[in-house]
């Protein structure tokens, strides 16, 4: 992959926060803003979905994201596509080299199946054991969305490999403390995210690994941008975004 110098190091943070492990958040991010997520530990997981706030029916489409870029893993240089052929966000910086596109979401039954001793809010207050599925449903309901709107999600910071026969393997302890990934938004995007564990995480108890979140701005990408150039398909994706923003 051709990876010219990138403008990913956005030094000025406009907003900084921390999302503890096992929790969820959603926010609208404008075109031209960046979302930098930093893990404090190896084995962190961040479930992520994207929707178009102007038309919530337009959403992250992982099949299109994978097939348009001929990739199974996601890393720097890749773009996250909506089902309308547009780019929600580009991955402009990445320390991990592999983010999971196939593992899906932690369901309530996994908590029991894994022997993670589910803890209610009454029992554990902020240390209760949320599932990623419930985390998404809670955030989505705030926008009038529900089970029908749950698309296949990305699992940032996690790595699931396939061998030549298609057999899957979850890589335990992927990443290093301090590793980060940065998304640059190419259109206004409703971002829904959670820090619940990956459904294949073999930890003996519900792992609680949070992320530091840093919001910033980035200059608009030009034709020398690493994500624009990484695949000819992405140049066409950016052209679809240009069409969407005509007149702005």
């Amino acid at each position: 992959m051709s990876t010219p110098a990138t403008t990913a190091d956005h030094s000025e943070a406009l907003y900084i926060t921390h999302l503890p492990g096992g929790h969820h958040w959603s926010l609208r991010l404008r075109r031209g803003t960046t979302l930098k997520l930093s893990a404090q530990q190896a084995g962190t997981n961040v479930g992520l979905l994207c929707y178009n706030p102007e038309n919530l029916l337009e959403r992250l489409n992982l099949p299109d994201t994978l097939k348009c870029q001929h990739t199974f893993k996601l890393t720097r240089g890749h773009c996250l596509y909506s089902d309308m052929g547009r780019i929600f966000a580009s991955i402009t910086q990445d320390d991990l080299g592999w983010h999971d596109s196939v593992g899906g979401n932690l369901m309530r039954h996994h908590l029991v199946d894994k022997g993670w001793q589910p803890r209610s809010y009454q029992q554990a207050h902020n240390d209760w054991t949320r599932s990623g599925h419930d985390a998404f449903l809670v955030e989505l309901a705030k926008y009038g969305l529900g089970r029908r709107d749950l698309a296949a999600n990305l699992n940032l910071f996690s790595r699931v490999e396939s061998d030549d026969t298609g057999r899957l393997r979850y890589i335990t302890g992927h990443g290093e403390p301090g590793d980060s990934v940065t998304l640059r938004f190419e259109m206004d995007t409703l971002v829904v995210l959670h820090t619940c564990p990956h459904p294949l995480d073999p930890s003996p108890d519900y792992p609680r690994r949070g992320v530091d979140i840093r919001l910033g701005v980035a200059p608009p990408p030009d034709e020398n941008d690493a994500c624009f150039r990484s695949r000819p398909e992405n140049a066409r994706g950016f052209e679809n975004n240009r069409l969407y923003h005509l007149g702005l």
Partner: protein
Amino acid sequence: MIIESTLRPENAVNRTTVDAGDHYIGTLKAGQTLRILDLEGNQAADTLFYSARDTAERYSAMDTVREQGALYLTAGSRLLSSEGNLMLTITADTCGRHDTLGGACASESNTVRYDLEKRHMHSCRDNWMQAIADYPEYGITKRDITHNINFFMNVPVTAEGGLTFEDGISAPGKYVELVAAMDVVVLVSNCPQLNNPCNGYNPTPIELLIWK
């Protein structure tokens, strides 16, 4: 895994030929068997399943793939719903591998994959849009159209995390057979794609057969 069926076409209660670029929507009752037959070879049958009782519960690629620990579908694969429930089991397969990752072609993704000026060409998603417009009684709308199965498609993933589109491993007369564990709505687009060498640029009909 190649497993041949013992069911005989003459005993099927329903046989429907679906031309390329056309669609099928119908209900398969619990216990019934559906065969999807690739009549002329290297065709793609883009398929979604919904619980007939509650169409918000539907086939989930992620749950199916993760719980079986393997990317491809074949005989023995258990197709799980978005609630983790068993919807159908693949009981026979003479093709050996079916894609779970590539999703459907759409007018919009075709502009990215092939050319901006291909947007007018027919696609699986437009085909499904026609199906749900023609049959509103199923209660399926655009938000229900998600990550589908591509029966007969071969999309190998490499150990390094690459994704490739290989020529089909299907051939005339190959089929896959599924038995329903719950009443399911079956929604199929017989892929009209003219830009992908996988079908030799020549999309062809499939047949759907149902046994009681």
